[in-house]
């Protein structure tokens, strides 16, 4: 009687492709609420991870290019520790702007452009810059330009005519200890170039609170740097930087996280860039820039991340405000969209806007040198704005191998600054970066 029952019928069933069966069951199971964790709890990694990347940065013809190779290894040590070793090799070459000169219109209609006529050959080179008088033709009578009745009608950037070529090697080691809701991290590192050496130490603490819905982060770092300019043999500049961070991350609900970080850093010592000069109109001379020997800098970051389950995507929104006692203030607004495309593909598109107000002691060029305080014409301390666009594609080849490729375009324009009063475009430039990365875990 039972022989005509289930057994016969079951024996006749078709077989289906079982690996597909497992994928179908797993994805239907994961679609149920509460099946996956949304917590970002700090847990030690359970696998060894190797990560590497190639980067290429290019500011365009005759300017700076950087090629970078990076390799990182992370391994768990026992149940409560992990250790991460990171190594970077940079090849930097090209030339960058070192100061600006005005274009003058003098009585009688003569236009004088101090950069022309060989000025670059004596003042520009990294390593050749110094307190050298430019061989500009003086106005009639030898009187200073500022008293000659000449008026500035524009500004031009002087790019170093002798390109530099440098190599940087950096290595850092970091260990984390996981103890319940607390994670401690200690890191040590060095970075070495022909003319710059940095040793640094980092300490950080993460504490999960409120059933891991809230994470408090405290950080401290100390860097001890030495500058040995190739244009001033025998001189060694020392610089110490202390940085403090306090941060709070809050899980708002199943789909969103917010984060606030406040950072203060204090740098003291030789903060001048030995390869940057200023042009002094009064004396027709190019002299090395000088910066205050202390800089206190505050940085506030607000971040919001939201997962959009209907589109299987996530949106990031970041805002940063920073200000310092050199008078530099900056606003950054950045947003990115991270889209899962299926079959292991993921695409990220990001847009960033940056606006900076100049340092108190910045001028494109100086009529006369200030009697006290610093003076700089470094384009990085000027007023400017920038727009950056970023696209990244990544693909998981298997559960343990992921590769990615990205491109970023960054367009820096004085006219993009929030409080730009200047419509000169001589300091404008743009750059492209490309990167390729891979990550393997086992």
């Amino acid at each position, binding site marked *: 009687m039972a022989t005509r029952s289930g057994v016969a019928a079951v024996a006749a069933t078709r077989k289906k492709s079982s690996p597909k069966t497992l994928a179908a069951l797993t994805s239907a199971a994961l*679609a149920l609420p509460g099946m996956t964790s949304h917590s970002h709890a700090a847990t030690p990694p359970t696998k060894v991870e190797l990560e590497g990347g190639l980067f290429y940065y290019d500011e365009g013809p005759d300017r700076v290019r950087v090629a970078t190779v990076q390799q990182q290894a992370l391994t768990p040590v026992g149940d409560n520790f992990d250790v991460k070793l990171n190594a970077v090799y940079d090849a930097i070459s090209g030339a960058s702007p070192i100061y600006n000169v005005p274009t003058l219109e003098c009585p009688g209609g003569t236009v004088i452009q101090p950069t022309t006529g060989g000025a670059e050959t004596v003042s520009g080179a990294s390593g050749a810059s110094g307190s050298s008088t430019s061989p500009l033709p003086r106005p009639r009578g030898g009187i200073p330009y500022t008293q000659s009745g000449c008026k500035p009608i524009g500004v031009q950037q002087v790019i170093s005519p002798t390109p530099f070529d440098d190599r940087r090697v950096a290595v850092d080691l970091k260990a984390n200890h996981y103890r319940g809701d607390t994670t401690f991290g200690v890191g040590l590192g060095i970075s070495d170039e022909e003319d710059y050496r940095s040793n640094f130490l980092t300490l950080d603490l993460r504490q999960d609170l409120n059933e891991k819905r809230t994470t408090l982060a405290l950080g401290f770092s100390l860097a001890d740097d030495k500058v040995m300019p190739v244009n001033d043999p025998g001189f060694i500049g020392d610089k110490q930087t202390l940085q403090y961070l306090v941060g709070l991350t809050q899980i708002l609900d199943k789909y969103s996280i917010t984060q606030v970080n406040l950072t203060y850093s204090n740098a003291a010592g030789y903060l001048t860039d030995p390869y940057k000069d200023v042009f002094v109109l009064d004396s027709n001379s190019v002299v090395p820039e000088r910066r205050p020997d202390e800089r206190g800098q505050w940085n506030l970051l607000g971040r919001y991340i939201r997962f959009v389950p209907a589109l299987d995507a996530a949106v990031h929104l970041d805002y940063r405000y920073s200000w310092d006692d050199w008078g530099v203030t900056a606003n950054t607004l950045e947003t990115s969209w991270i889209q899962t495309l299926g079959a292991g593909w993921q695409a990220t598109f990001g847009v960033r806007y940056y606006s900076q107000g100049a340092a108190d002691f910045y001028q494109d060029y100086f009529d006369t040198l200030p009697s006290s305080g610093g003076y700089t014409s470094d384009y990085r301390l000027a007023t400017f704005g920038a727009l950056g666009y970023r696209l990244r594609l990544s693909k998981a080849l298997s559960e343990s191998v992921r590769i990615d490729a990205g491109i970023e375009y960054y367009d820096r324009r004085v006219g993009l600054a929030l409080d730009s009063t200047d419509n000169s475009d001589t300091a404008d430039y743009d750059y492209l970066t490309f990167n390729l990365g891979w990550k393997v875990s086992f």
Partner: protein
Amino acid sequence: MRLFRFPFGAMGSPCELQLYAETPQQARGPADRAIADIALLEARYSRYRQDSLLSAINAAAAQGGSIKVDAETAGLLDYAQTCYDRSDGLFDITSGVLRRVWSFASGRLPDPAELAAVLRRVGWTKLRWHNPRLEFPIAGMELDFGGIVKEYAADRAGTLLLDLGITHGLVNLGGDIRVLGPHPDGRAWTIGIRHPRRPDALLGNLLVRQGALATSGDYERCLEIDGRRYGHILDPRTGWPVEGLAAVSVLAPSCLVAGSASTIAMLKAQEGPAWLAGLGLEHLWVDGTGRIGGNLRPSAAA
């Protein structure tokens, strides 16, 4: 860290949480929340409670009506549909109504005419499921989330405990086990597998560090007549117990997948071992003659 054990009853089975924490308070809070979540699911999907969500669905099913369901129930129905599709129609949440004619306590076989009548009301394809609306074109059907909800509850409890910071421990809901993580010293959990024919004996032990282990067997309820054994796992197409395997254990990342894979393998009977071998999950089967197979080998029970 110390191990804290919290035995409780839910879903008609003895259950237990085993959690590692520094203090009793650190274990008690998460345990209470996990047990409350399991109780909530039981209240929602119990066949035995008149006020459950499932009873509301079955009220619509009895009349041949339709009902709009919430996202969680929709997820469970989607999962049930996937199981149906992937088991060639053997795993069917409409087959619970067969229990009305199979009374394992009565000691007698069902009347063939009654069985045939009930079979007309069994079959996933006889209902219409278009998220969020579930429609029963024929009256007298019944849904039963047994074989899904207990395993889902174990996974949910596991996720909840992990989110609350319990990373070493396990959830055991009547033998469906979700492991949160190994013992704090890294040792795997030793999980005994019941012998399908000797109630107080173990087949052996399995070592499990992560994931979930679920076991299906024909031994929980059965009927013996004239030396012939009739298990409670019924083929929804014939209404008769399947014959071939006595027990199947499957190890998977989630208890839900482990549970449905072991149940489908039982329903596949003689084809179960081959189906399991192709599935890609670690498993263990015992057939009616006591033969053991699969790629999981139990060690001798201590």
